[in-house]
C-alpha cells in the first residue's frame, strides 16, 4: 500500500493524523518532512510522544525525503507523509517528481490569510502555489478527516 496519504498539516503529528487517519488506514509508519524538525532531536522526541508504539516515525529533510520516497512508496506497510506548509510541499514535489496527490489537511489562520474552509486559511500567493501544483499534475484536495468530503481545489482557491 505504501504512502496512503500525502498531507499538508501545520500541526504535523496530532490526533487527527494518528487517530482520524491512522486507524482507518491501519497506518504503521509516518514520514514527517520538515527541515527544522529534522535538525532538532528535542522536537523529534516531542512528536514521537503522540504516536503509539506500533507506528514508526521517520524524520526527513526535503532532500532526504526526495531521495527516499521511492523506498517508502514500495514499503509493504501503510504510511502517511506529512509536510508543515505549502512551500515544503512544493519543494518535495519538485525535488522528487513523484508526488501525484496532496491532501490539504490543516492550514490555520495567520496574518494575511483568509478563510477558505473551516480548516484551511490561505494567502492569495499560497492559493496560487496550490493551483500551480495542480496544473503540474498533482491532484490537490482538502479534507481534514476521512469521513469528510474531499473538497476539490477549485472550491477553495
Amino acid at each position, binding site marked *: 500500500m505504501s504512502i496512503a496519504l500525502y498531507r499538508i498539516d501545520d500541526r504535523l503529528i496530532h*490526533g487527527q493524523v494518528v487517530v482520524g487517519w491512522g486507524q482507518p488506514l491501519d497506518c504503521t509508519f509516518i514520514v514527517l518532512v520538515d527541515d527544522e524538525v529534522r535538525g532538532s532531536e528535542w522536537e523529534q522526541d516531542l512528536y514521537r510522544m*503522540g504516536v503509539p508504539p506500533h507506528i514508526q516515525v521517520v524524520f526527513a529533510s526535503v532532500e532526504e525525503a526526495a531521495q527516499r520516497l521511492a523506498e517508502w512508496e514500495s514499503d509493504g506497510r501503510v504510511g502517511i507523509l506529512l509536510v508543515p506548509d505549502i512551500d515544503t510541499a512544493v519543494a518535495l514535489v519538485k525535488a522528487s517528481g513523484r508526488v501525484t496527490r496532496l491532501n490539504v489537511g490543516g492550514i490555520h489562520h495567520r496574518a494575511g490569510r483568509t478563510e477558505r474552509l473551516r480548516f484551511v486559511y490561505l494567502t492569495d500567493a499560497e492559493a496560487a502555489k496550490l493551483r500551480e501544483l495542480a496544473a503540474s499534475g498533482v491532484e490537490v484536495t482538502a479534507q481534514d478527516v476521512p469521513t469528510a468530503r474531499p473538497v476539490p481545489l477549485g472550491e477553495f482557491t
Partner: protein
Amino acid sequence: MSEPLRGVIVSHSAVAQALVSAVAAIAGVDGALVPVSNEGCDNDALGERLRTAVGSGPAVLFVDLPGGSCLTNSLRYAKQHADVAIVTGVNLAMLLDFVFHRNVSPAEAARRAADAGGKAIRVTAA
C-alpha cells in the same frame, strides 16, 4: 508560596471550557482554572494562547491527551518556563482536588492531581 497556582486546561474543542464550568458548578471556586482550546490554531497560535493563559505566575497545565498538539505545545512552553508542570489525561476529579491545593510547587501539585485523577478511574459493579 505567595500566589496560588493557576491551572490551565489545554484541550481539543470545548473540553477545557466545559471542565472549567463543571468545577465552578461543583466546587464553587472561580478563577483557579483557565481554559485553552486548540481549535483553529497552528502551533504558533496555540503557543500564544498558552502564554496568555498562564500569565506571569507559576502554573500547572492540564492536557487532555498524552500526545498531539495540545501536549507538544505545552511541552514547548514548559521547556522555557521552569515554574510550569504538566499533567496529561485531565479529568474532573483531578481538577476538583487541584483547586483546593494550590499553595504548593507546580511539580507537587501536578503529582497530587495525577494521583487524584488516577484514583477516580474505576470499573464499578452494577
